[in-house]
């Protein structure tokens, strides 16, 4: 939906807008290797036919693949904390990072932010399974992702190298899900989006990590047996190595 909006915007905003946007990313594939501890990608761009920095804002958003999640609430029943209520969400991203020239709430009105899904408070799940008010559960899901570093808003983190040239660093932490990410760059002028660009970014494991992951899912029986065999073999080797002479 949001991607569609961005595309439509791209198609129709061309000739009418005075200003335009070109952007790129430092790498379009992030490879997860055995010593992967997270990396940064650089998103950069330039404003063409710039009309001055006054009233102009840049917003960079990186969204991970959608991930279904269940949020449970615990209540105290007879002195024990028990899971009592739950909400299930579809369509929330596994990763969300927003960099902007100003705090996002100051850039545009709330309904515009919701339309483009800009800012953590503008995240809306596509499907909700809950008997009650899902809002506190949604806030809990956002809080959880912020705590583990998978959701973040970083106002003021876009550097202007000149009047028109900008760049920002986007962290890709170690806990990210594999899949297709989307890097979106928005150009705001007086609270209105006048140009936007979207570039895919792929996060994938390589080498041994990829083979092990694939084996765990494609040949689970052999994988399980391999684990047991490895455990038994190492157990046996250690007992031989540690055997006291005589």
């Amino acid at each position, binding site marked *: 939906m949001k991607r569609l909006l961005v595309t439509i915007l791209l198609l129709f905003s061309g000739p009418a807008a005075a200003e335009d946007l070109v952007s790129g990313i430092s790498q379009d594939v992030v490879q997860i290797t055995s010593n*992967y501890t997270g990396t940064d990608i650089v998103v950069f761009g330039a404003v063409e036919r710039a009309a001055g920095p006054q009233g102009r804002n840049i917003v960079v958003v990186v969204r991970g693949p959608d991930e279904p999640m269940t949020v449970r609430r*615990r209540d105290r029943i007879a002195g024990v904390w028990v899971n009592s209520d739950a909400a299930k969400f579809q369509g929330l991203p596994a990763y969300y990072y927003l960099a902007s020239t100003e705090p996002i709430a100051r850039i545009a009105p709330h309904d515009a932010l919701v339309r483009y899904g800009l800012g953590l408070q503008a995240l809306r799940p596509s499907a909700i399974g809950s008997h009650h008010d899902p809002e506190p559960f949604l806030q809990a899901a956002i809080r959880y992702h912020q705590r583990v570093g998978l959701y973040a808003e970083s106002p003021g983190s876009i550097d202007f190298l000149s009047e028109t040239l900008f760049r920002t660093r986007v962290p890709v932490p170690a806990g990210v899900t594999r899949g297709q990410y989307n890097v979106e760059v928005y150009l705001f002028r007086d609270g209105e989006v006048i140009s936007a660009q979207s570039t895919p970014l792929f996060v994938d494991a390589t080498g041994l990590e990829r083979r*092990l992951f694939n084996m765990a899912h494609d040949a*689970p029986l052999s*994988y399980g047996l391999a*684990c047991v065999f490895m*455990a038994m073999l190492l*157990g046996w*080797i250690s007992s031989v190595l540690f055997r006291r002479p005589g």
Partner: protein
Amino acid sequence: MEIYLPVAEMSVNWLIIIALGTGVGFLSGMFGVGGGFLMTPLLVFTGIPSTVAVATTLSHVTASSMSGALTQWRRRAIDFTMAGIMLIGGVAGTLCGVWLFALMRRQGQMDLIVALTYVLMLGSIGFIMLRESLATLRAYRSGVTVSRRLVHRGWIQNLPFKMRFRQSRLYISVIPPVAIGFAVGALSAIMGIGGGFIIVPAMIYILRMPTNVVMGTSLVQIIAVTAITTVLQATSNFAVDIVLAGLLVSGGVVGAQLGVRAGAKLRGEQLRLLLALIVLAVGAGLAWQLIARPADVYSLSEGVP
């Protein structure tokens, strides 16, 4: 020092994981328990998803137990007849436990049931062991010779299908060992543990096996149960991380060897006293988690079960 875990999809400090494996392995070699009841909470504490922690701990338990069992085997301190009989119940129990696991998860109160079971079991077993080992130690200090009762009283002695267990110097019905094996197999699948902390007291206090045979025999039982459960977890939940398992196992087997050495230097009742204290401490910690106000009353799990 960081390494990426392909199934858990996260990076961990491998030195910490190896240290965890070694420490828990030491305890497992010393007491003849698998250590799953310690390892699973510790892994979750380092940030590994609980499904992966539960499923991967089993490999660590298999390896530590294998290492310990081989050492006990050289000492001829394993009753294979007893282990075999218990395993009949163990296999049935594991399959039954996997079915129960799915059923409880559908009810949505899986976590609570597991935690309550842990607290009740650890609490009662720890208390019984503590009382018994303290009484024995006190009697030993005051110079009174305590004669171990080798004859069973009451209903256990009256059960049919008696068998001779030469290594354990027992002549008892096969029903209690099969029943214990079944219960431990079921608990293993539900709680992601080898079940040593239940088997060991059960062998000592219900079957009245000699303590020196209990260690090796329980390890054989644990190897079999955890191996079966690992394969079931890998095929049904895709939750076994082989890199994490390799790290845990590498530390665990070394720890287990050192633990067996340390355990051989201690007297049986001293060992039981120490194990009782550890079991009680873990039980108290879990009970605290149930009654203390959580930092965030909301919790998140990926996927929609």
